């Protein structure tokens, strides 16, 4: 249990671990993660399917208890924070309850909270005022998704948790959705969202927590995550060069051979290209590419040895 309570920390996970039993074997979903999120942050929980994002969110919401470790929201167990109405969440399920209208659904939900937003305002904010009186089972997937977002917002929570919120939305809806999230976050609220869309994490989060195989493999500002795996790669046709020699060039962190070509991962591509051309003037078809979050993502979450931490893998690359 926590011995000190830091009131500025909205979310604290310490060594949180969760395993599931499936067909007689134990599947580790989350293998001991430590995360601390401050008030007002917008954090993306990024990772491929099976990384442990949804399990982490279920633990945050008190829907499942960790096998080991602790989870606390606002210095309390999640269930207490939920009971106080401090949390709003959009879970990763498609359907809404049938035979009601979005307005009724919002009114009922709002009545459960101590200081809910005005229902009409929420309908406007989320852009569903025009469908507020339709039956929920007649809404399209994207409309239903926005209603579920409204359900998360109407309580005016201090912490908003969104599990893969834009699945099923078209580009237009997605843009509108993120505009609403930003508006909400601008009021000093804390937002955590799980996604496997890199562009969303890149565009809307202050901070990215990258998960793979149930572990946090990187955690920091989006720009830092990008920098962490070498910001550029150099690709050149160079049949006879020695890989070890290439890897030891200044500015190069790793060298890889692909047929006649070599791929150099660089921490400083300017230094690396000068050194490369000085040492190997015969190098041709040179390409220098910037690594987006996409490459950082592939690098850090690449399926390697499932049981060893991905940091080992990076050492192998170097």
């Amino acid at each position, binding site marked *: 249990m926590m011995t000190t309570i830091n009131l500025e920390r909205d979310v604290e996970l310490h060594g949180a671990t969760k395993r599931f039993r499936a067909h007689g074997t134990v599947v580790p979903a989350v293998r001991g993660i430590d995360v601390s999120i401050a008030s007002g942050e917008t954090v993306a929980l990024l990772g491929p399917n099976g990384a442990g994002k949804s399990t982490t969110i279920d633990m945050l919401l008190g829907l499942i208890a960790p096998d080991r470790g602790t989870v606390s929201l606002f210095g309390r167990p999640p269930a207490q924070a939920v009971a106080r109405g401090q949390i709003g969440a959009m*879970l990763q399920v*498609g359907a809404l309850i049938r035979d009601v209208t979005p307005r009724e659904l919002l009114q009922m939900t709002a009545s*459960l*909270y101590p200081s809910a937003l005005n229902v009409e305002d929420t309908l406007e904010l989320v852009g569903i005022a025009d469908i507020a009186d339709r039956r929920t089972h007649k809404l399209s997937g994207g409309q239903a998704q926005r209603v*579920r977002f409204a359900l998360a917002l109407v309580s005016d929570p201090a912490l908003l948790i969104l599990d893969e919120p834009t699945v099923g939305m078209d580009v237009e809806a997605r843009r509108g959705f993120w505009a609403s999230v930003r508006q909400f976050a601008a009021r000093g609220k804390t937002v955590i969202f799980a996604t496997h869309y890199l562009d969303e994490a890149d565009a809307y989060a202050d901070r990215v927590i990258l998960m793979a195989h149930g572990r946090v493999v990187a955690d920091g500002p989006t720009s830092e995550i990008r920098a962490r795996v070498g910001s550029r790669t150099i690709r050149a046709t160079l049949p006879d060069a020695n890989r070890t020699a290439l890897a030891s060039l200044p500015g190069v962190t790793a060298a890889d051979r692909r047929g006649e070509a070599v791929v150099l991962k660089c921490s400083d591509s300017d230094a690396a290209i000068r050194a490369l051309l000085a040492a190997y003037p015969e190098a041709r078809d040179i390409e220098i590419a910037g690594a987006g979050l996409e490459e950082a993502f592939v690098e850090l979450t690449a399926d390697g040895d499932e049981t060893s931490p991905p940091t080992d893998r990076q050492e192998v690359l170097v």
Partner: protein
Amino acid sequence: MRSLAYTRFELVRTFRNVRLLVFSFGFPLVLYFLIAAPNRHEHNFNGSGISIPLYYMVGLVAFGAMTALISSGARIAIERTDGWTRQLRITPLATSAYFGAKVITGYTLAALTITLLYASGVSLGVSLSAERWLEMTGLIIVALIPFAALGIFLGHLLTADSIGPAIGGSVSLLALVSGTWFPIGSHGILHDVGQFLPSYWLVRASHVGVGGQAWSATGWIVIAAWTVTLAALARFAYRRDTRRV
């Protein structure tokens, strides 16, 4: 206030579901008229001195009300599949308010079924003293409590695709061994097993209408024991039911 808002929401939802209403109310009524209307002048069913319209009115009241309450489980199973139950759990709605809404909705459907069957019985010539009506109805209401808990328990235990047969099967079996369709007598294996079931005492409650005695102490004990057991199971099933279905 909070619990009332959710109860109202549940009632509104339920009464908009026309198919649900048609089958909940329609099935016992159709069955009743099919059996009782052609035999409306039979006043000595199986030599019991009881008229067929009366015997099947009380039998179907037990059957229909029991079905109405257990069926809340089917709606719960579907809500779980839709992810609604998990959505509710991340609101401050208390477990007791959730259970309260489910029980009140189930009882409302049961009360309407009972009223419609009483009216149908009267239309086929059933006539009882006010005391009989009241005593019978009061005992039925008490006897239905375990079934309210059973519905919630099954709903949180089973999935949308298995709940149909589970409810259909248990209602049919309970109705059969408890004497809904024909008298099971006062001895023999059906009676021996039956008297430990809540449905037996539900049917006994309804048989107050055909001149039966009110419950013995055994009846009260059996109903109380099942209520406590099934309510604990329902609570347990709801507590652990937090996974994605």
